[in-house]
């Protein structure tokens, strides 16, 4: 049962991500992305990381993607009639590159001496929190500064009047 759910979710995550490649309308793409993100959240949960799973939903699906949709709605993008999705000029090289990337990553993953099944251990929010605010405190502070910088940048960029 557990395995079935895991692989099904993985397929959904990958399928939804693949759909973004071919859909025409950004809002539909965003929906597929949300589906992929939610599936990924479930994967996190199944792997035994409930905190990251919850944060994934709250942060990505709940905040970032809403922001995405908001921008799309403000821009009011409409699909330009019923045209087929044309492959952009010069698609061959990137496609080749992506294929090569897939191969190389597959080699990396399957070459690694990591076979064998996992023991399922759930690492709860308490452990993660203690790790974050203990060992990785400096990184947390730096991340806070980064977020502050982003905040300032956005405020600056979105000023009404510019000289």
């Amino acid at each position, binding site marked *: 049962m557990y395995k079935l759910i895991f692989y099904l979710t993985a397929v959904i995550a990958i399928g939804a991500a693949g759909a973004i490649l071919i859909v025409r309308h950004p809002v539909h793409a965003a929906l597929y992305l949300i589906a992929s993100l939610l599936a990924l959240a479930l994967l996190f949960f199944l792997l035994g990381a409930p905190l990251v799973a919850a944060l994934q939903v709250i942060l990505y699906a709940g905040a970032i993607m809403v922001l995405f949709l908001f921008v799309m709605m403000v821009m009011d993008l409409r699909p330009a009639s019923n045209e087929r999705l044309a492959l*952009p000029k*010069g698609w061959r*090289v*990137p496609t080749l*590159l*992506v294929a*090569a*990337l897939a191969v*190389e990553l597959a*080699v*990396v993953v399957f*070459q690694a001496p990591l076979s064998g099944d996992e023991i399922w251990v759930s690492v709860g929010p308490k452990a993660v929190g203690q790790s974050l605010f*203990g*060992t990785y*405190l*400096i990184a947390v*502070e730096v991340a806070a500064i980064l977020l502050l910088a982003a905040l300032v940048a956005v405020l600056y960029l979105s000023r009404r009047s510019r000289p």
Partner: protein
Amino acid sequence: MSTWLWLIPGSPFVGALTIALLGGRLPAARLPWFACAAAGISALTVAAAWLGGAAQEPLRQTLYIWLAVDGWQPSVGFTLDRLALVMVTVVSGVGFLIHVYSVAFMDKEAEQRRYYFYMNLFLAGMLVLVLADNLLLLYFGWEMVGLCSFALIGFWYRDPVKAAAGRKAFTVTRIGDTALAIAIFLLFVQFGTLSFDVLFPLGEGDWEGATAVALLILVGALGKSAQLPLQVWLPDAMAGPSPVSALIHAATMVTAGVYLIARTHPLFELAPGVQWTVAAIGVLTIVYGASCALAQHDIKRVLAYSTVSQIGYMFLALGCGAYALALFHLATHACFKALLFLSAGTLIHSAGGEHHIGRLGELNAGSRTVQLCFLVGAASLAAVPFFTAGFYSKDAILTAAWVAPVGGLLWLFAALGALLTGVYIFRVYLTVFHRSAEPLLRPRGRLPTPIAVPLLLLAALSLSVGFLEFPEGSGGPHTWSTWLESELDLAKHPEHHTTRVLQALSALMAVAGIALAFPLVRRERAGKSLPWQSFLQTGWRFDALYARLFVQPYHRTASALARWVEQGLIEAGLNGLTRGFWVMAAGLRRGVEFGSVERGLTFLVVGLQRGHAMLSATQNGLLSRYAVSVTTGTLALLGFWLFWPWGG
């Protein structure tokens, strides 16, 4: 008492925050008094610390651990030992008086909120610097002070000259700050801690890195304290309001370097060469500052150069191992220099913003009180024997310098500086206050209380602080140095009769300097200027030198790169090459019809053209193409790692 230690920097800090965040809600008339109260609480806490036994036993308080990572635990903690107590007393006391003075001085000014915000923050930064119990927190205060001084010097930022002065101060001190930061990194790498308590016992061993670190700390101190060769920002810093000049020059920023060296003196003792350099730079700066002050016409610039020169005395003392004397001079200097600046500011204010000493003399706007105060300050600066604080502190340094290596030379320079000091400050006093002609402006009314009280208080201090430390061998008490003995080693003095001779000589120097000022002023009134007037007035042309050494080469390199490398080499070279081949090919086609040669050349030309097109295509501005390049690079690296060496 320990639990209230945080209040010393905390009160101005909270004051600054309140002014910044809620200052708009306060009635404008209350704002200055609010800032004063914040500074006042700090000063009161210091007074309470004196009464509460800080003078005997160091007080400590650790507010919290900033970060705790693998045994490194930089704390936000304060230590109030005797060295810090001296600094804190000077900084908070003089700072408070200057705040009070500002109330009346700045009352017509717009944007007082910004002014008081930075003043309070400045005070807080300086107090953090002085009280910090580790180098990281000290550096935090150090940078806070630097930032605020930039903002305050450029307070009237709408005037481009004044804004540039602020920028200059910021840029020049930044050189020193960087050096200090590197020194801190080195210390951390070596010892894994930055706490003074742990660091300095460790530093007393034999450590070959000491020279480098001490040198870097020295550069840091040079930047903040405006010593040669980083002194150029200070004279320009006069662009700020007068109370700011007083705050920066007297009590706070410039003394930060002196404090830093005094605090880290065990390191300097490990590196005697560097310590002697401190003294050498000190004496050079003394003569430099004094000679430049001699030729200035702007009253505040005279005082600025005089500060440069006086800090030189402190460095000299530090370099000779007379730390207590350096601090003593720091304290007396804070009193009389603040007094001079505040009375000069009052004078300028009542003369409607006039800075030129000659015209100030013609206007004769100063009242009796201001004249008296300026006279006291000038006398103390010139070290008039027996009455003034400056005499006691400066002479002690001079005698202590004699025993240092090459002490005679150091003494000679310092004594020359003492002579010049008397000349330049009394030149100003005589020009400004003693005109025989009928004055144009009559002094008006009494001084406002917030101006008069700090002036008179500082005048009293300038006369009396000296009695804390009587000259060596005079039989008077040595309250100051014996009190500091537990933390800072005593200065060495030459044997008895040499000391006597030296003391007499330096007292003579001061009096001689004042005497020399009279003919000088008479000469100037007659319209004759000094020899080398312009050389001295421009501060030995240091600005021009730096412009030529650093600024211009930088500009020139940049524009040369743009012109020669970008346009000349890459653009013109490649274009010319292609065009040349075209011309050659066309010429060959017309002239010589060698089949193979022509084909070969055409091939080359077409190849070049294709290559050009392909290279241009990498700069087509298309994000996707750039992404493709990045991916290719990543793939290549990954592939290299995976498949190389084959089968690995």
